[in-house]
């Protein structure tokens, strides 16, 4: 455990020193604050709906940006740094600790970068709509961090699995496109080929194949209500056996997306001849 903490701290230091965290914090914070400020200024909606509408835009921002940045940072931490990597490998450190430690460090780095952005945006929202949905907002930030975890793990896996390291970034970029766009298009297309009752079940099960979908659906349900999905919301809640269970299933699904790729990655790394 001590090794993992040390590695995590080391990883954070690397990303803070090389300004990744700072740059990302500025870009993300600026966008989030702009969405919160202008979203509310033009919306003119007070109360809970004002909150729900503004945070829905923040959710969208998170769904595009966080997977991309997480994938890049995850990939870079194993494929980017030549000398630092070799230095680490010659240390008396178990290779699985290396993966978990780096994952934790990266996760905290992203938490730092997004935390200030989400925090500032949250302050603007709170000033405008009052206490409507503070807990919901905190849960939403939690969702965003789980999304980061999933894509960091995927990035690490891609980096370790690629034979030639520079290629890893290409794969990572492909993964981003795949999960953010192609996957949903594929499923939507597929649902038109199968009979109606199967199609509904297919849609709900397909959510688990894509962490972006899991976080998007769970995030909307947190920030607004399952009613935002209309009839599909009824089916979804029924499919999982209640609103609470739907949340649990989607969140557990997302966490698994964080753990499984990392577990695969450390398995690969242990067997790898460096």
């Amino acid at each position, binding site marked *: 455990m001590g090794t993992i903490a040390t590695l995590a701290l080391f990883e954070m230091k690397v990303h803070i020193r090389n300004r990744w965290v700072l740059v990302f914090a500025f870009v993300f914070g600026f966008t989030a604050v702009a969405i919160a400020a202008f979203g509310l200024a033009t919306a003119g909606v*007070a109360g809970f709906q004002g909150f729900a509408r503004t945070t829905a835009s923040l959710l969208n921002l998170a769904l595009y940006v966080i997977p991309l940045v997480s994938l890049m940072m995850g990939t870079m931490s194993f494929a980017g740094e030549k000398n630092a990597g070799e230095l680490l490998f010659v240390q008396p450190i178990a290779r699985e600790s290396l993966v978990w430690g780096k994952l934790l460090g990266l996760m905290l780095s992203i938490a730092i970068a997004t*935390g*200030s952005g989400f925090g500032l945006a949250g*302050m603007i929202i*709170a000033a405008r709509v*009052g206490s409507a949905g503070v807990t919901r907002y*905190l849960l939403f930030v939690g969702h965003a961090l789980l999304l980061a975890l999933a894509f960091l793990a995927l990035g690490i896996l891609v980096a370790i699995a690629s034979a030639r390291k520079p290629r890893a970034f290409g794969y990572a970029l492909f993964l981003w496109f795949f999960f953010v766009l192609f996957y949903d298009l594929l499923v939507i297309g597929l649902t038109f080929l199968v009979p109606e009752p199967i199609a509904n079940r297919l849609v709900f099960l397909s959510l688990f194949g894509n962490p972006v*979908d899991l976080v998007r659906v769970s995030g909307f349900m947190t920030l607004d209500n399952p009613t935002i999905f*209309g009839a599909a919301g009824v089916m979804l809640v029924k499919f999982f056996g209640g609103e609470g269970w739907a949340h649990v299933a989607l969140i557990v699904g997302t966490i698994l997306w964080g753990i499984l790729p990392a577990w695969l990655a450390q398995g690969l790394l242990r067997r790898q001849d460096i």
Partner: protein
Amino acid sequence: MVLLMGIGGSAEAKTLVVRPQGPLASVREAIRQADAGDTIRIEAGVYGGNLRLEKPLTLEGVGKPLILGEGSGSVITVLADGCTIRGMVIERSGRVLVEEDSGILVKSSRNRIEENEIRDVLYGIYLYAAHDNLIRGNRIRGLAELEFGERGNGIHIWNSSGNRIIANTISHMRDGLYLQNASRSVIRENHAFHLRYGLHYMFSDDNVIEENRFFDNMVGAAIMYSRRIRLRRNIFFRNRGFSSYGLLFQDCDDCVIEGNLIADNAVGIFMEALRRSVFRRNLITTNDVAVYLFSSASENVFTENSFVRNVSLLRVIGRGTTTRWSWQGVGNYWDAYEGFDADGDGIGDVPFRLQDLFERLEGNHPRLRVYLSSAAAEALAFAEKAFPIIPGPQEWDPAPLRKPRALWPSDALEIERIPFSRWAFLAPMAMVGLSVGLFLWVGRR
């Protein structure tokens, strides 16, 4: 012992005063003693029900006297024409739906029921084949502990015509106002909330519904099987749930829906088999879906409405519709409209398309709503814009307005404002503090 006081120059009409300390301490006894046209003044206190008015009398409460029913049947039953019941508190009716157990059961005409508080009753005021009554300023609160199906309606109008229902407040009943075979009614300035349907309407023609507020119900107003209904300046607000609608039409003809505010509902307007009706100058805002339209709705017109900040504008179920989104070259105001107005006549020069490809698919495949605001949905919409070859029914507004013309300002929703809370502010502030702190701490080590 009866106190005699001539009023209003009418020689015969007298006023009987009922007060707990006597001499006349029973309302029932006073009714027995009174002659047609008399007034019974009831002072503050608790009196036993149930009461039956079989001659035209005025029951005038002073200081909110309470009439406590027997817990079965109706607390007050009005059988004679021309009675007045004013300023009373009425509680504890029976609980048998088929017996019409009510606070006030009216089976006669030309009565006035005003300024009463009716609580702990199955039905509030039940008009049973009763015509030309005035029901004004009553507060009716039902049995919140019962399921919707077990409760009665706030004001139930059956087989009655020409009634005026004005400025009543109704909550926690099944339906707020229920009208069946109730033509020529006027429903104005009522507030109906925490109900199944705020207004529920069957087979009632030629009614006017104005300046009412229907909020926090499962359905704001459900208008069914009726003709020539005029809805003006009502507010349908925050009716939310899986099958919630602000304003629902089912099999209606020739209605006019003008100047209403339809805001923050799961679905703003739902129309199935609504025909030849006009929606004009309404503000339809912040609904999850603004309009839910079945193919069976035909020849309706939307003109000069404002559609602002709805998550989705339109769902069409079935094949296309004959709904027109403009009338004589005047369309609606759409906040999503991106066109221009080169000739400066206030009408956009480019038609406004109400749905993209994804939204059209969603109409007949509701499961796709799960992909709400996903990149895939955006991509489908973009693909259709870039390659406009995908066929299918389309809904257009050929003459979108550049400026809103609805009766309400577009920010009319500033109804509720949640007070500023220190805690709401502290949580995100802590988030910033933690991030910056961690950044500095790790950076220094």
